[in-house]
């Protein structure tokens, strides 16, 4: 009797592992040829919008991030990514462009695995719902100022928007605080590795 009962536990383990191998381990093996990059590696090169933030909000930038450098860029990317997760932005914005439904015309080149092979995607932020548009090609689409205004009160720049406002990303002078600056830096980093011809090189692997 006991052995019969145990057989269901064994069957559960076996079927789980079979599925895990086919749907989890196999993709890991296939993609293991790609080099995994750290946040510091993908923070280089520094995006022009990050440097721009330093002149847009000099006092705040100085206070939270100091000088424009790869290290401060990496710090901003980390904090920005954490804010993106804390607010569950990934539940309303996806981060991959599919090869169908004219998505390449709307957002930009179709996503490739090497774009995600870095610690900024630990955990990944693919998303499964688009209440708002996809964000993986967001770099440079809007200005830093637009992002600041939009995060503060989305309906001021897009009256139809159903996005919440995030006043806690701003200080008492309505200038972006550490999280606000970091989130803008993060959004301006998303897709900064795609050049003007639409060629994708994995982030951190070349010049701008």
């Amino acid at each position: 009797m006991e052995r019969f009962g145990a057989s269901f536990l064994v069957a559960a383990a076996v079927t789980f592992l079979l599925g895990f191998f086919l749907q989890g381990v196999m993709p890991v093996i296939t993609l293991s040829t790609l080099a995994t990059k750290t946040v510091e590696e993908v923070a280089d090169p520094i995006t022009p919008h990050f440097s721009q933030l330093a002149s847009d909000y000099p006092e705040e930038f100085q206070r939270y991030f100091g000088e424009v450098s790869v290290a401060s860029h990496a710090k901003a990317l980390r904090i920005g990514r954490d804010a993106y997760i804390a607010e569950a932005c990934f539940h309303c914005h996806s981060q991959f462009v599919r090869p169908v439904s004219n998505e390449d015309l709307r957002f930009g080149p179709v996503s490739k695995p090497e774009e995600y092979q870095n610690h900024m995607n630990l955990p990944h932020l693919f998303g499964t719902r688009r209440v708002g548009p996809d964000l993986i090609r967001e770099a440079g689409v809007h200005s830093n100022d637009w992002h600041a205004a939009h995060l503060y009160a989305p309906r001021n720049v897009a009256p139809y928007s159903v996005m919440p406002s995030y006043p806690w990303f701003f200080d008492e002078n309505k200038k972006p605080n550490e999280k606000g600056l970091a989130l803008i830096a993060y959004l301006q980093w998303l897709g900064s590795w795609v050049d003007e011809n639409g060629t994708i090189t994995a982030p951190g692997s070349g010049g701008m």
Partner: protein
Amino acid sequence: MANGDSRALVNLDLIRWHLIASATFMMVSMLGGLAYAFQFNQLYPFPSIEWLSPGRVRMVHTNMAAYGFIANAFIAGLLFAIPRLTKKPIFSDQLGWMIFGAWQLTMVLTVIGQLAGYGQAIEWGETPSFVDPLVLVGLVLLVINMSVPIFRTEEPGLYVSLWYFLAAFGWTGLVYFMGNFLPEYWVPGTAGAAITGLFIHDLVGLFVTPIGWGLMYFFVPLLLRKPIWSHALSLIGFWGLAFFYPMQGVHHFLLSPIPMYAQYGAIVATIAVEIVVLTVIVNFFGTLHGRSEAIRGNLALRWFYTGMILYALTCLQCAFQVTLTFQKIIHFTDWVVAHAHMVMFGVFGFWIYGFFIEVWPRVVGRPWVSPRLLTLHYWMTMSALALMIVDLTAGGLVQGFLWRGLNHWGDSVIASMPFWWVRTLSGLIIISAQGLFIYALWATARQPSTEMTEAPVGASPATAGVGV
């Protein structure tokens, strides 16, 4: 009484408290969902409050539905069914209470953590990282507590329900560990997405589904007072589910950068499992055959079979929507939201209501205060959910085609507004119905005591006299 054991076979107190916790977190989840729905009408009730930001509240909505509402009720179901099927009590009542306490503590920590901004970016696993080890320990203890009677039983064979329960025990810890730890700490990017997809799927397929079906195999024959129609179909259904369900994870990220062989594999397995599911549905409707008038008189059975019809619809829908043709349009839209509500609430939530209706009078030792109120609860909940499903499915198609047509993004948002209003309306009706249900639970427990605790399952004093 179990042989030589002075304890009662079934710990009704423990079941009662798990049911109370389940009903409480159900309301937390639904209030969160309703508030979130108002955000889409540009009428969020708590704008600009950091701890009640809609994104954070959404995590509370889904996590409390899965781990607060469904898991608590399922633990109650296991506590009810396993000792009856094995004629042995659970391993330890003290351990049972410890698990109860630990589980509710995890739920509270999850809500606080998510509202404070410590949610984890794993869909359906947004429980904060610091809560995850606690959940895992709780799951292992639960498995020990519930497996021991199954291994100790002297019954001549294991009934179908116990196959499902044992398999779920084997799967759940593995699934939870895989989903909450691998993509968070070790597997970045695209491969991490494959594993997250597997977690989203396995949580529903290998935890909720087998326990749900195990409870159906337990309750339906008892309430109908006849055996399951076909043992062969039970076997096919179980082993088919066990084989095909765990290999479909990537279907949550179709047309993504995940290698196409994994995507095609997931699609084929998903379509295959639809055939398996049909055998289970056929088996249960074969069991009902000749006794279908029972649906009219017994509200628990009515919830069970309504859930099964929705299960059949969900799985049929799956077999189509998993194809790349459908994915082009429906992925990322409200279609998927409709699908998720149909399975998590329409199937498992409905089964839980049936379970409540059968079991609550036993654990409080009093008959339902008003069967008519319960009937009203059924019709309000069922029709409002049907409205939500039709509404969001249609809204999803509108969104998908507007996106493909390269309309301005704002056009798709504006076109969605009426659908989002109807969704809010259906949410309001569902919440009101649950308010009535909570009132019925409370009023039933408050009545003067009567002698009915020992009524056998299936005798249904609970719902006698329920009208259509």
